[in-house]
């Protein structure tokens, strides 16, 4: 449904959603980000030809909370009830690197200089990886908004992009947050009710069944993928320790050991890279778990609208029987029907394009991951072969 533009390097990074930034009228990216202790400040760069914006190219700093605000306001906008709302980016999680940094600080005295330097390097690499990931995920969120015909015109979106001061004033205060929490609870209770509502449209009936099933399976797959990549990282770390231990032993001119050390170090790197590739798959699964949830939310809203419509019918009948408030009830019923129809129409469009998007993203990601696995395994092989030859010829 969309062309996958492979020109820029960045395109390779965005493997979860591929229909972005094709339209030059509004181009958004996050070229830079700063990490200050707990907070990450993203620098959003916008290039646009749209007249609704004051400037044609500008940048603005935003924090993670600003993204959440934008997402929530869009969710709460009635007009968009019939659209799949791009999932909010998850909070930047630097827990892993932070833990490691702590451990590094504690164990500094007990480690040799080389070990310390090596661990520090690793820590930095890990930090960088988390950083890159969070930038990407925030970027994709904005790009999905900018590439959607309806969302890009959203007033709040424009404010988010243009407002040259801190958005703190607009963020949720405690009361609103609590209200949001309550709403979520009601929603999940409703979900149970709604799933019992009789569906008239075959398309939506199918979608409901599919999405419910798929949602649980993809959540499961994501969790398992995460566990697997973590194990893989552990193995890579072990090679690190092994090479460290061998370093201390290779006091004599034992070439075997020296070779193994270099092999271990590179094996560790390879393993690390391999696990990064797996991470891609995990990322894909994670993203689509959220996206599936967004699609489910759309179904929910439509089902809610259907329930409202049915209720309005009942009210109208009651009103007709009683002979009071008929006009009001009629008006209500008409509105509900209109809303329901609108939701159904846009919902159908959205879900169909979502299907296609998902398939394309999976394809791209799986291909990339496979190619990288092959490349790195081949690298490992040539390295190992070289080492074996050297050892055998000694």
């Amino acid at each position, binding site marked *: 449904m969309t062309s996958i533009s492979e020109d820029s390097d960045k395109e390779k990074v965005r493997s979860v959603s591929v229909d972005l930034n094709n339209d030059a009228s509004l181009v958004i990216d996050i070229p830079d980000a700063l990490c200050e202790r707990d907070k990450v400040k993203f620098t959003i760069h916008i290039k646009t030809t749209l007249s609704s914006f004051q400037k044609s190219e500008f940048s603005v700093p935003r924090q993670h909370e600003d993204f959440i605000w934008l997402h929530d306001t869009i969710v709460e906008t009635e007009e968009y009830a019939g659209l799949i709302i791009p999932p909010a980016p998850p909070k930047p999680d630097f827990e892993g690197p932070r833990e490691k940094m702590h451990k590094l600080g504690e164990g500094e005295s007990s480690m040799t200089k080389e070990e310390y330097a090596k661990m520090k390097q690793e820590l930095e690499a890990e930090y960088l990886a988390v950083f890159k990931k969070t930038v990407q995920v925030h970027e994709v969120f904005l790009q999905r908004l900018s590439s959607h015909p309806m969302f890009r015109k959203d007033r709040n979106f424009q404010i988010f992009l243009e407002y040259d001061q801190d958005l703190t004033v607009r963020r949720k205060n405690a009361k609103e947050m609590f209200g949001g929490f309550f709403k979520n609870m009601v929603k999940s209770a409703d979900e149970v009710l709604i799933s019992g509502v009789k569906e008239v449209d075959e398309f939506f009936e199918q979608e409901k069944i*599919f999405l419910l*099933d*798929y949602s649980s*399976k*993809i959540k*499961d*797959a994501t969790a*398992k*993928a995460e*566990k*697997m990549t*973590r*194990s*893989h990282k*552990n*193995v890579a770390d*072990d*090679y690190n*320790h*092994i090479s*460290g*231990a*061998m370093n*201390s*032993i290779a006091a004599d001119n*034992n070439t*075997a*050991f020296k*070779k*193994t050390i270099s*092999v271990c170090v590179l*094996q560790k790197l390879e393993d690390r890279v391999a696990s990064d590739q797996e991470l891609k798959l995990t990322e894909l699964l994670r993203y689509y778990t959220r996206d599936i949830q967004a699609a489910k939310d759309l179904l929910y809203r439509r089902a809610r609208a259907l329930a409202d419509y049915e209720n309005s019918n009942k009210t109208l009948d009651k009103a007709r029987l009683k002979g009071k408030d008929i006009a009001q009830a009629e008006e209500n019923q008409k509105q509900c029907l209109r809303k329901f129809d609108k939701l159904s129409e846009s919902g159908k469009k959205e879900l169909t394009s979502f*299907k296609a998007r998902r*398939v394309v993203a*999976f*394809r791209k990601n*799986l*291909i990339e991951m*496979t*190619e990288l*696995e*092959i490349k790195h*395994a*081949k690298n*490992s*092989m040539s390295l*190992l*072969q070289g*080492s*074996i*030859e050297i*050892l*055998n*010829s*000694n």
Partner: protein
Amino acid sequence: MSGGCGRNPPPFPDNEDQEAELDTRVLDSDEDDDDEGEDIFTGARSKPITPTSAPDEGDIFSEEGSYIRSDVHHATNGLHSDEELDLFTEATVELTLTNTTSQGRREIIGPTASACNTTHVPNSILKPSIVTKTMEELEEEESGDQFELNIAVTNPEKIGDGMNAYMSYKVSTQTTLPMFLNKTFSVRRRFSDFLGLYEKISAKHSLLGCIIPPPPQKSVVGMTKVKVGKEDSSSAEFVEKRRAALERYLQRVVAHPSLLQDPDVREFLERDELPRAVNTQALSGPGLLKMINRASDAVNKMTIKMNESDNWFESKLQEVENEEQLLRRLHAAVDSLVNHRKELCINTAVFSKSVAMLGSVEENSALSRALSQLAEVEDKMEQLHQQQAFSDFFILAELLADYVRLLGAVRCCFEQRMKVWQRLQEAQSTLQKKREAEAKLLWANKPEKLQQAKDDINEWESKVSQYERDFERVTCTVRKEVLRFEKEKARDFKQHIVKYLESLLHTQHRLVKCWEAFLPEAKAIA
């Protein structure tokens, strides 16, 4: 030897036909143990030892250093029954009979047959390769005929039931040495027999300053599980670990020139029934006595301060102690690797199932197919990881564990020398005292006691010269032994490291194949 039903590992799932065939042969050939000739090898073959390295042996024997593995290994699950696998091809130890310092002996570690895992038996167990003599080593060989002696430990069988049960292992020897009655023969031994052998050898040779290879460690927990009859993979793994360790132990023993000459060793290998070695149990009377002796030795060691004329011993001992520490650390790191890789195995298998489920729900048919293919790839990954964990363990971890213990044995060797020295010192001081006593008697003019004193002096003079000679001999032997040991160690490590790198290479190769097969499926998604 009668036996309970042989606990051969469950047949590898893909080869049940082959296995059934081979199994019957085992049961037949196990009836008589002597002079089995070919049967030993085919019998052992019933284990799913994939001889995928057999072609390797060919490579190695032709002394080509390059790795030509790429075509040889097929990503199949089957046994390669094309070549007759001679169990002993990997267990070659070539030795000379002359008791020289030179080499000519290879420390070969025998086939690491697959562990009796129930589900995923690795397809190709990579065995340590054999290093044949290079030209220089052949030249260095002193005069002396070349004789062959190959030893293998196979066919663990559980004899008896309950707490009195024990595992019996088949010890097969193939040799051209004239001192043995036959060319090929085998006997059944149990673990305590091996320990008994160690005790006997140790008693005789350690005083001379030889490095005695230590036997595998006792394990109450491991054996109890086996005795109780838990047929799970961990007890099967334990048996396999022990079998391999016993094999390595025997190979090290016979690689030692003077140990090989020992009649006890010969008896161990040849004699049908050995008297039960009773003083090897940990909690027996002799066992406790041994522990006490060891403790007093330790105290002694701390109080002896030798007067070294030659710094070599002091610095060497320090080196040995340092290395032991470092190897311990390395072993711990490799252990951790093995465990994490096993974890990775489990997680990969779980993930594979999850992806399969996702694929089954997916509505796009091409994507659905790709996802189930991905699940299969991950499944294959799991097998690869399992094999690699195997190699990690049997090639690296066990090697390191062995050498930590061997270095301990080297230290004992040094301690023996110190004991001999101490004995010499004591004799010398006694002699001194006797001389003083004689002088006193002369002075006090007691002629009748003088003769006695003179006799005493003579006795002690000869003792002192005897002990001096002993000390010289022990010093010389220890030196020789340490040099021999170091050469063996360097060779051993290099061999194993090469083998390990080869296993890694193999894994990566299989990995590439798996992913390359998947790529078209991924590209076919539309």
